[in-house]
């Protein structure tokens, strides 16, 4: 069974587009990256899944249940971490977490303490006294304390220091090993690269690409740097070259095609240095945003 299924999901806020005609599935047990710049529609998608906003058309289901008709049942099995965290300022952290646990009708005390210890979160402090990073930790604990089957993470690492980001990734990976499906929205490509199995690339409310991370990496895109004098795109004699530019005596470009053709073309020139490497996901995605479909 798919954990999430979106069918032509569309959300308009009045005349303003949130998402348009989104259709994709998230398989049970996978970590699914949902990547795109601000305003691409990532948060709208997640908030529609949770029934916080209502779709204009299309449908969304989680574990086979319609997100609008069966929202209450669905949310028993979902943990959600919003990108911006706001809680009741006058409460102590422990009281907020107990309040959160009370909705799930099970004893979450042990898990609360485990997670708080892992995230180095003080339970006795008032919410209003916490830094943004610490509020984010509260969000992580409240999202995980009930042992959800699906985690909806909306830019979860903003505000966390690198050490806490690593701990958080470890927790997410551990949850995933135990069968938890993770829907991971982010605009930070390196963290998606690090965690996710598949990724959907969003632009202007649409998915412009949906691939496994491995496929994206093996797209035959190569990042090439040549140290040579007088080299131009024309003299190089290669097709499928993009981002061609010179910088401090080095010619850099992206090449998509066979390695054989690349080596043959490069070998014709008098070079003092050659670097051919895989581009990072970030570089691949920037390529999509600059040149991909609208």
């Amino acid at each position: 069974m798919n954990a999430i299924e979106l069918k032509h999901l569309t959300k308009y806020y009045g005349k303003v587009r949130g998402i348009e005609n989104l259709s994709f599935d998230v398989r049970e047990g996978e970590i699914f990256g949902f990547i795109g710049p601000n305003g691409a529609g990532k948060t709208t998608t997640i908030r529609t899944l949770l029934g916080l906003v209502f779709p204009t058309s299309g449908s969304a289901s989680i574990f086979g249940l319609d997100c609008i008709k069966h929202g209450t049942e669905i949310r028993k099995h979902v943990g959600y971490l919003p990108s911006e965290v706001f809680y009741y300022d006058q409460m102590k952290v422990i009281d907020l977490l107990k309040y959160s646990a009370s909705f799930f009708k099970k004893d979450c005390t042990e898990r609360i303490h485990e997670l708080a210890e892992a995230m180095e979160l003080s339970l006795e402090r008032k919410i209003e006294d916490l830094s943004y990073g610490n509020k984010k930790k509260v969000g992580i604990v409240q999202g995980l304390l009930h042992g959800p089957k699906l985690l909806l993470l909306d830019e979860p690492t903003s505000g966390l220091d690198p050490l806490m980001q690593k701990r958080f990734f470890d927790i997410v990976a551990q949850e995933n090993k135990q069968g938890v499906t993770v829907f991971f929205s982010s605009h930070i490509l390196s963290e998606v690269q690090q965690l996710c199995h598949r990724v959907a690339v969003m632009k202007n409310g649409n998915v412009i690409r949906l691939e496994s991370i491995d496929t994206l990496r093996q797209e035959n895109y190569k990042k090439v740097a040549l140290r040579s004098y007088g080299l131009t795109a024309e003299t190089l004699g290669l097709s499928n070259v993009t981002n061609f530019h010179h910088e401090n005596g080095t010619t850099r470009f992206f090449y998509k095609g066979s390695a054989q053709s690349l080596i043959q073309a490069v070998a014709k020139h008098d070079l003092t240095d050659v670097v051919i490497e895989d581009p990072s996901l970030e570089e691949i995605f920037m390529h999509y945003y600059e040149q991909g479909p609208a």
Partner: protein
Amino acid sequence: MTILVFELRRYMGSLMGWIASIVALLVMFMAFYPVLAQDAAMLDLFLEHYPEELLKAFGMGGELSLATVAGFFAFSFAFTQLVVGAQSAYYGFHFMSVEEREMTADFLYAKPVSRPQILLAKYGAAGSALLITNVGVWLGSFLAIDLFRGDATYELWPVVSLLLTVPVFQLFFFSLGFVVTAVSKKTVSVIGAAVGVSFVLYMLNALRRIVGGELLGLVSPYYHFDPNYILLTGAWHPLHTAISVSFIIVANFTAVRLYLRRDLRSAT
């Protein structure tokens, strides 16, 4: 901890402040009664020096003499209504919109609880706070009357009849706040809106007293539940009560429907 208990705890601090203010207002006003009642003739002479319009605007110079317990209580109760109206409107503007204003909606509504359950619990908590206030108004009224009436007598039933209007009066303002926030796409400044609504409707009724006629009063619960009328007749005005009750039903029906399908605002 259920939402109801959680919400009730949140109300408790400010609720005690509201009740203390209302009781203090009632007692403070009635404290002037013994002095004024001592010499009714002097009081009438004193009031004659004020413009008739001003006296009407403040609900004085009617058929009930200020020298009687009922007359003076009617005068002081009009100001109590102003505070009760502001408090009820405040709760109406506040009770559902607070999660969106304070950006905590994503926390609460992402939990396994339906919107009707959230609405019912929050309505129940706000309703309980209004009910407790109502008890405070009753106690404060009888305390104020009995502390300062001296040997003067009054009929109990008209006072009880007036106090029985308080829940409907509260619900009118509460429902008004509720429906405005449900219709509004943007968040409303709660304190400003509550005080504004209470005062504007009060002024409409004051204006009606000056210019005469009924039209301006028909939209104002201060006219629907005019203390002078109820303490004089011992009864509620049937048409005015029907207008208030109809508004409450329509406003709540509309607000509930809108809230159940509302797109909740997010922080981003």
